[in-house]
C-alpha cells in the first residue's frame, strides 16, 4: 500500500511543472491539450486541492502561438460536452455550478488556465517533465535537450514524440543518461487512439512506468515498440509507401505517370478499403516528412529500399504537401479543393492534370470493379466487419480485372511488411502491428491478416 501511494504521489509531483516544446505544431498542440486535461484531472483530485500545476506551451514565435488557446478551448469544450456526466462528478463539490453549461464553461476555463504560452525556452528550466514535439530533426532535438538539461536543476524527464529516430541515439547525443522515453502520438493526437511507447536500453525503469501511467490516464491505446528507427508505425507505413511508388513506376511502363499515380491511389483507397489512398496520405503527412523519415531509417540500415527518387524530385521542386496553418491541405501528389483531390501531378513537368478527365482512363485501366465493394466508413461501425472484408477480398481474388489483381498483390506486400517488423523484433507480435495500423492510421483491418488465403 505504502509503495503504491508513494508511486502515485511521485506521478503527481512530476506533473506539477511540465513543458511542451513545439506546442503550436500539429502534434504539439494535441499533446498540449491532452496534457493540460491530465494536469487538470490531477488537480481536481481531492488530495491535490490548492496545489499548483503549470504547463508551459513553448514555441518559436508568437505568431505560431496565436490561435493555440482557441484550439485548446474548442477541443476542451467538445470533450466536456461529450463527457458531461463525468465532468459534473469532477466538480461535484463546487456549489456555484448548476447547469451543464456552467460545468462545461468551468472545465474549459480550468484547462486553459493551466497553460502558459511562451516563446522562451527558459520556461522549461523549471519543469520536471518536458514533452518534445519539434520537427523531426535529430540535431535540433539534441540541441534543445542539451540546453534544457544543462540549465534545469530538477533532473527532469523527457518525452520525445519522434516517429523515427532511435531513442538511445538522442539520449546518448544529448547526454540524458536514461531520462528520455519515446512517446509517439499519432496525428491528430486528440483523436487518434494510438500511442507507441519506446524505451531505449538506457531509459530509467521509473520513467517507463511513469510514461505508461501517463498514457493510460489519457485513455490511449499503448503499443510498445522496440527502439529501432521508424518503430512500428513508420516501419510499416514507409514500406507501404515505397510499395505504392514502385507500383506506380511499374505501371508507368504502360501508362503515363500521373495516371499511374491516380491508379495506385484508387487501388489503395477503394480496393483496399482504406481511409485515403497511399499518395493522398503522403500529402497529408507531408512529402518532405516522408522523405526525411525514410532517410532516417535508410541511414540506419533498416531497409535498403527506403529511398525514392520520385520523392526527392518533388521535394526539390518545393512540392511538399502538408497543411496550411488553417488546416487546409497543401498541394502534393494531388491538388486539393475543399479537402478533396481534384488534380494529380505530372512529376516530369510539375504540372497538375485534372482528375476528372483522368478518372475514366483510370477506370478503364483497372477494368470493371467487382460488385459488392465495401466502404471504409461504413465498415468502421459494422458489426460483421470481418465477414464483409473476407467476402470482398474473396471476390477480388476470384476476379480477373487488373484492379483486383493489383490490389491483392498490394495486400500481400502490406502483409509482408507487417511480418518483417515481427521478424526483426520491432513489434512483439502481429497483433501489435495490426493495432498500430487500426488505431494510428484508422485502417479498418490490420495488415497481418489472412484475407488473401
Amino acid at each position: 500500500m505504502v509503495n503504491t501511494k508513494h508511486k502515485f504521489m511521485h506521478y503527481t509531483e512530476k506533473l506539477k511543472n511540465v513543458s511542451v516544446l513545439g506546442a503550436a505544431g500539429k502534434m504539439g498542440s494535441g499533446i498540449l491539450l491532452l496534457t493540460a486535461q491530465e494536469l487538470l484531472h490531477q488537480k481536481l483530485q481531492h488530495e491535490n486541492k490548492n496545489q499548483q500545476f503549470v504547463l508551459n506551451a513553448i514555441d518559436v514565435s508568437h505568431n505560431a502561438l496565436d490561435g493555440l488557446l482557441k484550439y485548446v478551448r474548442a477541443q476542451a469544450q467538445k470533450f466536456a460536452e461529450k463527457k458531461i456526466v463525468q465532468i459534473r462528478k469532477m466538480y461535484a463539490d463546487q456549489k456555484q455550478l448548476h447547469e451543464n453549461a456552467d460545468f462545461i464553461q468551468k472545465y474549459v476555463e480550468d484547462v486553459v488556465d493551466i497553460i502558459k504560452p511562451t516563446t522562451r525556452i527558459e520556461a522549461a528550466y523549471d519543469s520536471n517533465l518536458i514533452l518534445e514535439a519539434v520537427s523531426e530533426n535529430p540535431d535540433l532535438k539534441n540541441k534543445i535537450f542539451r540546453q534544457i538539461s544543462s540549465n534545469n536543476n530538477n533532473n527532469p524527464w523527457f518525452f520525445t514524440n519522434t516517429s523515427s529516430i532511435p531513442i538511445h541515439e538522442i539520449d546518448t547525443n544529448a547526454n540524458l543518461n536514461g531520462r528520455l522515453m519515446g512517446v509517439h502520438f499519432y496525428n491528430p493526437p486528440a483523436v487518434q487512439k494510438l500511442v507507441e511507447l519506446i524505451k531505449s536500453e538506457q531509459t530509467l525503469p521509473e520513467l517507463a512506468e511513469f510514461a505508461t501511467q501517463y498514457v493510460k490516464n489519457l485513455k490511449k491505446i499503448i503499443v510498445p515498440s522496440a527502439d529501432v528507427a521508424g518503430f512500428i508505425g513508420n516501419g510499416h507505413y514507409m514500406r507501404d509507401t515505397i510499395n505504392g511508388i514502385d507500383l506506380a513506376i511499374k505501371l508507368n511502363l504502360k501508362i503515363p505517370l500521373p495516371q499511374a499515380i491516380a491508379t495506385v491511389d484508387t487501388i489503395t483507397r477503394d480496393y483496399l478499403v482504406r481511409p485515403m489512398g497511399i499518395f493522398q496520405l503522403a500529402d497529408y503527412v507531408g512529402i518532405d516528412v516522408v522523405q526525411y523519415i525514410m532517410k532516417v531509417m535508410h541511414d540506419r540500415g533498416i531497409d535498403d529500399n527506403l529511398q525514392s527518387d520520385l520523392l526527392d524530385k518533388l521535394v526539390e521542386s518545393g512540392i511538399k504537401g502538408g497543411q496550411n496553418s488553417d488546416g487546409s491541405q497543401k498541394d502534393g501528389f494531388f491538388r486539393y479543393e475543399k479537402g478533396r483531390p481534384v488534380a494529380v501531378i505530372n512529376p516530369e513537368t510539375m504540372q497538375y492534370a485534372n482528375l476528372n478527365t483522368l478518372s475514366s482512363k483510370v477506370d478503364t485501366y483497372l477494368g470493371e470493379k467487382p460488385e459488392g465493394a465495401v466502404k471504409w466508413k461504413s465498415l468502421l461501425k459494422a458489426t460483421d466487419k470481418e465477414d464483409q472484408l473476407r467476402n470482398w477480398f474473396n471476390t477480388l481474388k476470384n476476379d480477373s480485372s487488373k484492379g483486383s489483381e493489383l490490389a491483392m498483390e498490394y495486400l500481400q506486400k502490406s502483409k509482408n511488411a507487417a511480418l518483417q517488423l515481427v521478424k526483426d523484433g520491432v513489434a512483439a507480435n502481429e497483433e501489435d502491428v495490426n493495432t498500430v495500423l487500426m488505431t494510428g492510421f484508422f485502417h479498418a483491418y490490420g495488415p497481418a491478416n489472412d484475407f488473401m488465403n
Partner: protein
Amino acid sequence: MTTLRKKIYMTAGHNTVSLGPGRKEFHPKKPRPGIEHYLKEAGEGTIKKLGGAEKIDESVVGNFMAPRYNKQGHLGAFAPMISPALQYKPGLSVEAACASGGMSLMTGIKSILAETADTVLSLGVEVQNSVKAVYGADILAGAGWFQERKDGHAHFFPGQFSDRAGAYFKKFGREKTRKAYARWYKNAIENARLCETAQEYHNTHTDPESLALNTEPNPRAFTDHLTVFDSSKVSDGASAIAIMSEEGLKKHNISLNQAVQIVGYGHAVEDLTQKPGELTKLNTMQNAVKKAMKMAGITKNDLGTVEIHDCFTSAAIIGIEAIGLAPHGKGTDFVLDGHTARDGKIPFNTTGGLIGWGHPTGATGVHMAVTIWEQLTGNAGDAQINIDPKRPYGMSVNMGGDDKTVMVIIYKNAAS
C-alpha cells in the same frame, strides 16, 4: 365544477413535421426554420380547414422555453402573423413545462366556458434543435425545481425517469420491464411510420424491438436504467386545433361528425419543491385522470384510444397504471399482451406518441388532441384505427415535469 355547463368542441387539427434526428431532411449543421415558421404553418393549417380566420375570436400559444431555446418571448403576439384576421384580437401564451400544449387547450376551453369566445385557435410550439442536447438538458431541467439541478443528472429528466425505471425494476423485475419498454418502442416506431409528419416516419429498422432490448443502458454516456430508445428525441414542431362552442361550429359550418366533443377534463399540479413520493407511481396523473373521468361520467372500460405522455418508456408503463388500465406492477403485462398496440384493446399513441412522432415540448399537448380528433373523426389517413362503437372515447394525458402538472382531456365524436 364537476360537470361542463356548456358544450365544447375541437376541430380542424393540424401538425407540422416534427423535425429532428431521424428525419431525412434534418441536418444538425444546416440552417432550419425558426419558431415563427412553425407557428405560421400549424396555424395556417387549421385556419385553412376552418375556411378563414375571420371568425376566430382569440388565440393562445402553448410553449415551454422559447425564451431560452430561441431567445424569444411574447409568443401571444405572433398570432396576427399567422393571419391578418387575428390582428387586434386577444392573443396570449401559456406555460406549464411539457404540459404547455395541454395548458393551451385548457385555456381555450375556459374561454368557451366563460363565454368570452366561440372559437379559440389553440397552438403549441417548441423549437429545440437550436442548441446541442447537452445544453437542451439544462433548459428542460427548468421543468423541475432549480434548487435540485445541482444534484440532478447531467441529462436531468432522463435521470429522473431512469430513477423511476430503476425503482420499477427493483420492485417488479428488470427483465420483463425492459421487454415491455422494448415493445413500447416497437409500437411507437410502427405507428410513426404511418404518419408522415412523425419524426420516426423515415425509420426503416427491421427489428426495433430487438434493437431496443439488446441495447444496454450506458451510465457513463446516458443514464443508469434507460437507453436512447427509451427516450423521446429533440424536436422542432408545432400543432394547432380550433376549440369551439356550438355557436362556433355553426358559424364555421362544421358538421358534428368532423368535430370531437370535450366531455371531461382534469388538471392537477403537485408541489414542485417536493421529491416524488413513490417512484413507481404517477400520483398527479392518477388524480387528473380520476377527475376527468368523473366529469365525463365514464370508466376506463369506455376508452377506445389514449394518447399518453411517453417522454420515456418508463413514464408510459406507470402511466398505464395511473390511468387504472392495469394494477400496480402490471403495466408491463398490459403492453406485452398487446393491448396498447394499434390492433389491441386500447390503441395507445397511434401516430407514434412522444417517442415515435416526436416531442416538441410545448406542442405535445396540442398534438395529442389533434391525433385524437383525427382518430375519432376518421381523419387519421394511413394511421387510422378502428374505434369500437362500444368504447367511443379518446383520452389525452399530457404531463409537465416529473408528474408535477398533468392535463387530461376526454373526447368523443361530436355526432355520436
